[in-house]
């Protein structure tokens, strides 16, 4: 049978080792799915994603759209009767997907912005003018107008390999 899926316990273990210690506590009650705003209007099922993680169905999980449906609202975590750190586990699996090169272009853009200016969005001229008109500095006192701070910020991203991960600026 071609659709038989082979569990990979090593993948499940790698999630646990990365910090998802509560993964195996899940007993599949489905409270997470019932609480999930993303699952209301789509086929995304939190319970199913966690079950796949327990089984280590790596090839189902890492390239999937499902992995990116979570808004990290924590409704599931608040209600989970087993205290599974569902959002943390999803984030750890996203890290693994990104390491394998699964990353939407629009998300890469946010990463590139962080590398370039230390912020997720750029400054705009009308905002600069508004800032000045209110008596604020034209640039906020962040990495924005501070080359030394930006160099430090970028250096940290180089040490952790973030620049390579998102394919440079």
């Amino acid at each position, binding site marked *: 049978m071609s659709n038989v899926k082979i569990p990979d316990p090593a993948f499940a273990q790698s999630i646990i080792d*990365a910090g998802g210690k509560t993964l195996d506590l899940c007993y599949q009650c489905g409270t997470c799915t019932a609480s999930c705003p993303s699952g209301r209007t789509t086929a995304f099922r939190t319970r199913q994603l966690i079950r796949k993680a327990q089984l280590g169905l790596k090839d189902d999980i890492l390239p999937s759209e499902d992995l990116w449906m979570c808004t990290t609202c*924590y409704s599931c975590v608040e209600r989970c009767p087993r205290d599974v750190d569902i959002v943390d586990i999803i984030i750890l699996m996203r*890290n693994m997907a990104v390491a394998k090169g699964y990353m939407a272009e629009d998300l890469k853009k946010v990463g590139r912005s962080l590398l370039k200016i230390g912020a997720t969005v750029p400054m705009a001229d009308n*905002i600069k003018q508004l800032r000045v008109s209110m008596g604020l500095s034209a640039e*906020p006192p*962040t990495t924005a107008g*501070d080359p030394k701070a930006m160099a430090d910020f970028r250096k940290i991203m180089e040490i952790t390999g973030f620049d390579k991960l998102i394919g440079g600026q």
Partner: protein
Amino acid sequence: MANDKFALFLGCIAPLRYPGIEKATRDVFKALGYNLKEMTGAGCCPAPGVIRSFNQATWLALAARNLAIAEKQGCDILTICNGCYGSLFDANHMLNEDPELMKKVNTILKEVGMHYEGKVQVRHFAEVLFNDLGIEKVKQKMTNPLNLNVAAHYGCHFTRPSKLKHIDDPERPRMLDELIEWTGSKSVPYADKMMCCGAGGGVRSRDAKFALSFTETKLKNIKAAKADYIIDVCPFCHLQFDRSQRDLPGYDIPVIHLSQLYGLAMGLPKSSLGLEAHEVKVNL
């Protein structure tokens, strides 16, 4: 004497998209006796959904750098955004729980001449207004009581995960409703009040249409409850509600950050609230 306890963490969306939130926060806290310190050179928190989803080690090290900037000044951090609060609070918690992780992060920080001990507390401005100041002190400064009919939007990372944050009941919180009531306004109940705005977790960046479906559900419920304004405590939720109404005509519900609402109630000039940056016009 002014209170020097807090350093103001700006994040990205407030200073770069809705600077009125930054200005109102500065002025409101000044009026309440706080001398907010600058976190010069701070960067993105970094965003809990997007950046943490890419690489948690990077997220943690950059968050630790921000925490270290406040620690060097002997300050706690005041955040004005649920995302910044979520990231910095969670990162701080992880570092303080795990000495090995703290050590690892400090070897990275050492490369840029910094160090983090773990002494900073990360706070959310709304919770500081409620817990540190309280109704008496805040109401004393409210010279311009408002009589608005509003929908409170808590957002997700303000109260959750509640097992770490202990801010309020994560299902039926009251804090933001009470903070709104202190201004003389009414916080109206509406269906699915604790639902996410849709922007978080990288969803807005990756699939704006899907994020919009969350926002539309919320706007429908808010309209049905006959609220005239949305009051938020997060510039990212703020942006999602405000800018989404370009694509969702017919609602026309202005979006106001709690700091701006407090600015109004404390009689700050409207020119200090930056309402010009709002997509849905605020006529107050």
